[in-house]
């Protein structure tokens, strides 16, 4: 498929990030950047620090050293709320849906930052509050339509199979209309068909909405297929960074990752 999206300027620049938990070094002096509209993959063996990296980007973890440059603004570290406001949404490695709520409500939560009605108006469910609620409902329905999950709209997410939960979680992230989407192993534990669907959704999001995507994924085939650039971590350090082809040919990567783990 021809692509019309233009990869733009650097949108996130991570500089010399180091992160420790007590005495354990999770990330050591990691630097890489993410350009606007690209699909950027982070790969590496288990425990390489991939999830920690995402957690640093959206402020769940605060690195001890380094800085994060987001759209040209320098941050010592991020905080989750500011990250969400800055248009960063994400999914989690172990699905972090709100299990007691329906698919619809879960995705609706993704729009919370766009909802302005006062608490009292909500309690009255009246006028602007109701209009706002229903306008967002429509937006959410479009996401439901996009992800082809119409039939489970009113099902509590706890009852859904794994693959669908992953899809709902993507929906919740998309509901925020993010400019940057962090996906932590979006295809883990899926069968081939589910993976294909998920790939299609990711590509569609990237392509149709221009969303920048940072992606952690284990399935090398998928990573090489869909990403524009790949950064490889091992033991909390960067060992390679480049296009899929460059990375594939990198001897360190072959040694540390491809040759050993898989």
């Amino acid at each position, binding site marked *: 498929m021809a692509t019309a999206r233009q990869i733009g300027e650097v949108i996130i620049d991570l500089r010399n990030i180091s992160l420790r938990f007590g005495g354990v070094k999770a990330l050591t002096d990691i630097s890489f950047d993410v350009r606007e509209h690209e699909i950027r993959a982070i790969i590496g063996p288990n425990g390489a620090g991939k999830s920690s990296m995402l957690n640093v980007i*959206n402020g*769940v973890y605060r690195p001890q050293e380094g800085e994060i440059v987001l759209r040209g603004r320098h941050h010592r570290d991020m905080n*989750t*709320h500011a*990250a*969400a*406001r800055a248009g960063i*949404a*994400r999914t*989690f490695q172990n699905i*972090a*849906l*709100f*299990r*007691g*709520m329906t698919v619809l*409500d879960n995705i*609706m*939560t*993704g729009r*919370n*930052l766009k*909802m302005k*009605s006062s*608490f009292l108006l*909500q*309690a*009255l*469910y009246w006028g602007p*509050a*109701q209009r706002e*609620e*229903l306008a967002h*409902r*429509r937006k959410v329905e479009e996401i439901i339509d996009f992800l082809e999950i119409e039939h489970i709209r009113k099902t509590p997410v706890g009852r859904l199979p794994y693959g669908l939960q992953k899809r709902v979680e993507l929906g*919740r*992230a998309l509901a*925020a209309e993010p400019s940057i989407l962090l996906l932590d192993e979006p295809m883990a534990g899926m069968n081939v068909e589910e993976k294909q669907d998920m790939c299609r959704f990711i590509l569609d999001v990237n392509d149709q909405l221009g969303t920048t995507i940072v992606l952690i994924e284990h399935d090398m085939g998928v990573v090489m297929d869909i990403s524009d650039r790949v950064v490889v971590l091992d033991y909390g350090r960067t060992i390679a960074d480049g296009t899929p082809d460059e990375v594939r040919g990198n001897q360190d990567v072959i040694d540390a990752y491809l040759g050993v783990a898989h």
Partner: protein
Amino acid sequence: MLYREAGQFKATYVEDSQIFPIRQDKVGMALILVVAFAGIPLLSLTGLMTDYFFTAILTPFLIFALATLGLNILTGYAGQLSLGTAAFMAVGAFASYNFILRVDGMPILAAFALGGLCAAAVGIVFGLPSMRVRGFYLAAATLATQFFVVWILTKIGWFTNYSSSGVITAQKIEMFGYTFDSALSKYLFVLAIVALLALLAKNMVRSNVGRSWMAIRDMDMAAEVIGFRPLRTKLLAFAVSSFYCGVAGALFAYAYLGTVEPEGFSLDLSFRILFMVIIGGVGSILGSFFGAAFIVLVPIGLNILTGFLENSAGISLPSGISSSIELMVFGAMIIFFLIVEPHGLARLWQIGKEKLRLWPFPH
């Protein structure tokens, strides 16, 4: 079986997001309201219902349901366990008392609302630890509220208008020149307030604020990442919950007991309301009513049973045994529900309803 839903399609989001999207539910709710507001009063005018029904069953049921609703918002929806419900009720009761006592011409409803707001303020203060702690650390923290509030109401005479015994007598409920002094009128007064607040609560839980509570409850980290502010969300839950409990406390004093003392709002009362939440259904507005009805009716049922045993069967029971048995029954019921149906009577109702909707199919 009773549900005949074919043809009840929704052409707009307004229709689709109604509280009762199914016509049969709507009709059922309307019937309940008609019975509650008109049927029961008419029945009492014919003399078929004595004051006992109002003073011992219906009014306390409604008041407890309101308090349960309050606790359910905090514990069921926002996931913050609280053992200080009675304290918030006490704040509501004593604040209302003082507003009426000290402000000339204070309308009773305004006093109740202000009482609720005072409770909400106290709730926010004692909800602050939720910023750092969770689970039963938080539950333990709310116990502090319980002890502190009761202590301060007892120790500072101003609150009880320097009553030597600490007991206050609630003023009459007067509105527009009408005095609600009959059992029936008090029942209707309580019913109107409870119905209104229940509607507001339902609206909250189906809006963004309700979703924020449930999000924090279900997965606080994810809630934070998508932009909910945990502390603000939790404190709002504390405030709303305490407001409901505060109003319930005021009604408890004004429409139910008439005279109250701080010790009346004991830890035991807090526990009872927690039981109502558990048995009724954690995270369910409807369940709050079920739970309150259950806990109000069980002792009455037990009394009837022991009375029957003593009078008819001639078994004489030691004095005080019925309160002990009541404790045991409550305890056993809680454990039973937690094991068998942790979502309480509301879930049973839900299951039954689903069965009826799919009848004759089993699933």
